[in-house]
């Protein structure tokens, strides 16, 4: 398996993602410049967190028009696995590869803290190693993570099982208190209808070693690796 980590001007979590994959999981990675037009032989593409183009206009609005995003869209349309983390999630929504939008946090504050996520779907490529209802402890770090979609879209996300993660309490309850940013229905991560593109606000790469305070984030990367290996076999 080969993972590409896309680097836009202003991306800041690229090295952390590379550390999680290469140093912790021993998977080969390649940094992909935002000007590249060909993803080559990659199996997994990660759009990491950060502030691409300074979040000017809207988070992800400018990055969406870079050359690499055409290649990412082609890759996704061919069924390739794409993971958008935080700003990467925002970019995938701007590119209409994922539904909804991410508004300013309801508190109007930047939130950097550990949260709990309940795994709602374990048949997504990024959660095959998880069981439904499993609670992952992973940090968030964002000012615009307040998930919004119109009522019709929300219902179709629910019906199609595209809501992959929700913010929850430590014992897995979905409560307003467990929601750090005002997201509708406590949504923390959604997939596309096909299930090969996932976006989430929390940072799994920052929860990849006990030294960092936890390693629950590895479940997401390991799931992608296992899903790809399963296809290869």
């Amino acid at each position, binding site marked *: 398996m080969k993972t590409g980590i896309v680097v836009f001007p202003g991306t800041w979590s690229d090295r952390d993602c590379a550390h999680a994959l290469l140093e912790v999981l021993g998977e080969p990675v390649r940094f992909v410049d935002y000007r590249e037009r060909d993803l080559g032989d990659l199996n997994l593409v990660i759009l990491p967190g950060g502030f691409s183009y300074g979040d000017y206009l809207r988070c992800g609005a400018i990055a969406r*028009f870079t050359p690499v995003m055409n290649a990412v869209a082609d890759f996704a349309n061919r069924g390739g696995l794409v993971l958008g983390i935080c700003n990467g999630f925002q970019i995938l929504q*701007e590119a209409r590869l994922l539904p909804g*939008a991410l508004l300013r946090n309801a508190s*109007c504050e930047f939130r950097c803290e550990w949260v709990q996520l309940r795994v709602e779907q374990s048949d997504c490529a990024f959660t095959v190693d998880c069981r439904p209802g499993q609670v992952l402890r992973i940090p968030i770090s964002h000012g615009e993570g*307040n998930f*919004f979609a119109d009522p019709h879209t929300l219902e179709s996300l629910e019906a199609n099982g595209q809501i992959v993660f929700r913010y929850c309490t430590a014992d897995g309850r979905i409560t307003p208190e467990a929601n750090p940013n005002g997201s509708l229905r406590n949504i923390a991560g959604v997939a596309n209808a096909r299930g090969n593109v996932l976006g989430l606000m929390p940072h799994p790469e920052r929860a990849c070693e006990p030294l960092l305070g936890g390693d629950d984030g590895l479940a997401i990367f390991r799931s992608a690796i296992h899903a790809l290996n399963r296809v290869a076999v």
Partner: protein
Amino acid sequence: MTYRAEVFVTLKPVVNDPAGLTIRGGLHALGFESVKDVRAGKYLSILLDEADEDQARSRVEEMARQLLANEVIEDFRIELQPEPALAESRGGGPS
């Protein structure tokens, strides 16, 4: 012809606007108790050369749909007028 387009981008009425709510709270704290609602948005001023006003408006609408606004959450409104100073200098009018 040179036109100035002013584009106002606002959150759709159904979308919660935490910044607007916070500003309303600030105005109330200052004693402006008559304030019932505040919606925050973006303002863009765009100078462009187009053949005529219709063409200019349709180009700016394309810009708004493709980039300036995210229609999942935002509405936009365009105000367009000829840019007099530039229009005159281009037209080679009296100095």
